[in-house]
């Protein structure tokens, strides 16, 4: 900007320096600020006021632009929620497939518009329900899936050509993607009508959530197998949702969440390019998943910064040409880690504010947490309030009626740019150290997250950070304001008996031959997915398929970092 246009753009009032030295200084003499410094939840400084000078360095056309156009700072669609509301997508999963299918129907009946599935730990880690170490965990924190039969029951009566479904699974995601495809095709959904998402982001398992099976390098290869396969067979399906959520929940700050997530996504795309695929073949179907935490403005700016940085990484770093490769489409979830066991009704207020931040940040779909999740899988009454919170925001508060309403705010634009810069520097640090796999194997990322988590805990205990009801405004525990969630104690037996029945009745020769084909593909650097789908149709179990690859790739033992 030249001087003349800068003067024209600046407000008529005196400049910030003059205001600081006169009006502000006078006020501070009479009434000092309530703390010496203010920072975002990630520790970035917050000034008392932002004005035109703070956004001078931002080039409006190239860095802010318009929604639906590069660099997408203002949103991925030109109309945003005026044309299509965000998808209300509450994750659900417990017990057997029938149990979770029942919860799906409850949620759809109350106005949910997309489905999302949590799987139990044995499924996530590629063990069948009758494996010795699986038995205590069957159906406890997600639905148990052993064979394609379970996915059929899970999706029963759900119109898969109308309702998109997201699967939260990673290490064994390739099996569930195959099962989902098989069930969609049984329902005669055409290839280009199969929508939905699989999380399938293995890198953040090593840094945050820890549900991994194989070492990082072959695990990334499996992810690229699914990206290549899905691009061919289900062109509208998102085979990956690169997830900052778990990184944040594990204790990172917003800058680390941005950096390690985008660095992970960049790793998957560049690995696909190394295989000889074009970036534009895979990148348009890469989607994202963010945690929306307590710092309202920082979270809004995080989503805006993520869109701008991802657009630039794909266009300028990777050389993608298709604008769809440059768009960061995202699901968001309010921060589970911010929920308190103390005074649980307060969680409704926390979640509502976080949900508003996700919407003002421009998310494509949203999960709002339930007030009882510091104790249990949400009860029906609690999850209904969470759904209603989204409906109130959509229908009553007018926040969805204008695109990127905070665009142009001095503070929001300034913080968006700062977060982008901080995240980019950290991504470059990861790349300079040899990339994501290297930075996982030597514990660099895990250490960063563990340190941030310990810092926050220390701040809470020193009362420099507050959580209402937990370290301030504390009350004696009262009666809990929700009904207890209980699981059927017989669910494990039901699940095991179904799986063992299938093992006995299937065509054994086809089953054995399909598993051999998976092994050959894995050893021969051939895409494993066609063989995996063949095995699924032959009623191979999740555990059997994962075991074949355990034999080829081995199991990962992580460095202990704390």
């Amino acid at each position, binding site marked *: 900007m030249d001087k003349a246009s800068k003067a024209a753009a600046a407000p008529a009032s005196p400049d910030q320096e003059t205001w600081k030295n006169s009006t502000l200084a006078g006020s501070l003499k009479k009434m000092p600020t309530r703390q010496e410094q203010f920072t975002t939840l990630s520790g970035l400084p917050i000034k008392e006021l932002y004005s035109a000078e703070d956004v001078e360095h931002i080039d409006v056309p190239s860095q802010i632009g318009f929604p639906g156009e590069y660099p997408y700072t203002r949103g991925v669609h030109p109309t945003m929620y005026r044309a299509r509301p965000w998808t209300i997508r509450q994750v659900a999963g417990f017990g057997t497939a029938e149990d979770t299918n029942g919860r799906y129907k409850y949620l759809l009946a109350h106005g949910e518009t997309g489905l999302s599935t949590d799987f139990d730990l044995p499924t996530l880690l590629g063990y069948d329900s009758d494996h010795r170490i699986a038995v205590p965990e069957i159906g406890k924190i997600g639905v148990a899936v052993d064979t394609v039969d379970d996915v059929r029951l899970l999706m029963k009566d759900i119109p898969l050509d109308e309702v998109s479904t997201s699967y939260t699974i990673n290490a064994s995601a390739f099996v569930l993607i195959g099962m989902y495809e098989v069930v969609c095709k049984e329902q005669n959904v055409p290839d280009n009508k199969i929508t939905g998402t699989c999380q399938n982001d293995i890198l953040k398992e090593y840094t945050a959530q820890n549900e991994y099976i194989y070492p990082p390098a072959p695990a990334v290869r499996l992810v690229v197998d699914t990206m290549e396969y899905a691009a061919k067979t289900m062109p509208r399906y998102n085979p990956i949702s690169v997830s900052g959520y778990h990184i944040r929940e594990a204790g990172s700050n917003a800058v680390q969440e941005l950096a390690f997530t985008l660095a992970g996504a960049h790793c998957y795309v560049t690995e696909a390019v190394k295989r000889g695929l074009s970036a534009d073949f895979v990148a348009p179907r890469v989607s994202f998943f963010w945690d929306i935490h307590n710092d309202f403005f920082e979270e809004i700016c995080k989503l805006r910064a993520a869109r701008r940085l991802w657009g630039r990484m794909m266009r300028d770093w990777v050389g993608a040409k298709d604008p769809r490769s440059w768009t960061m489409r995202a699901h968001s979830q309010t921060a589970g880690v911010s929920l308190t066991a103390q005074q649980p009704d307060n969680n409704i207020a926390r979640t509502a504010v976080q949900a508003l931040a996700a919407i003002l940040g421009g998310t494509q779909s949203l999960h709002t947490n339930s007030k009882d999740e510091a104790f249990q899988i949400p009860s029906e009454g609690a999850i209904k309030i969470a759904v209603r919170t989204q409906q109130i925001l959509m229908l009553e508060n007018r926040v969805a009626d204008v695109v990127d309403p905070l665009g142009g705010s001095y503070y929001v634009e300034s913080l968006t740019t700062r977060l982008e810069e901080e995240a980019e520097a950290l991504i470059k640090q990861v790349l300079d150290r040899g990339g994501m796999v290297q930075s996982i194997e030597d514990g660099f990322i895990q250490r960063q997250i563990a340190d941030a988590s310990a810092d926050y805990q220390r701040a809470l*205990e020193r009362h420099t950070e507050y959580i209402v009801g937990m370290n301030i405004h504390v009350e004696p525990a009262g009666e809990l304001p929700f009904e207890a969630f209980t699981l059927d104690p017989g669910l494990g037996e039901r699940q095991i008996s179904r799986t063992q029945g299938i093992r006995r009745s299937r065509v054994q020769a086809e089953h054995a031959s399909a598993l051999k084909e998976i092994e050959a593909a894995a050893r021969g650097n051939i895409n494993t997915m066609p063989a995996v789908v063949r095995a699924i149709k032959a009623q191979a179990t999740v555990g059997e398929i994962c075991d074949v690859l355990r034999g080829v790739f081995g199991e990962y033992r992580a460095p202990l970092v*704390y």
Partner: protein
Amino acid sequence: MSKPLRVVVAKPGLDGHDRGAKIIARAFRDAGMEVIYTGIFQTTEMIVRTVVEEDADVLGLSILSGAHLHFAEEICKALREQAAKEVLVVMGGILPPPDIPKVKESGVAEVFGPGTPTTTIIDFVRKWHAAQ
């Protein structure tokens, strides 16, 4: 000066959510205790073996997977059978309130839910030790 307390922090079962386990392991260490953190994916046998071999005084279990009833019962029973001395077992994580008396019945001395200050847990362990 008495020798420092030896504490094993363990994550039984298949759950990988280790933020709490790492926080409490650091807090015990910063409080001057000797900490052995097992990492994730631990079976009952692995945990009990670690406690016995390390001659630990305290076992801290972190469970967010809903398998707390199973592991509380199995681990406390195995410790009674195999440990040469009394081991204090404490638990943290996500537990539905009706399950808390049940895990205590199995032998868990105290359950520390989300939001518990680490100092509360350290004080509890020290008090137990002083009463020994």
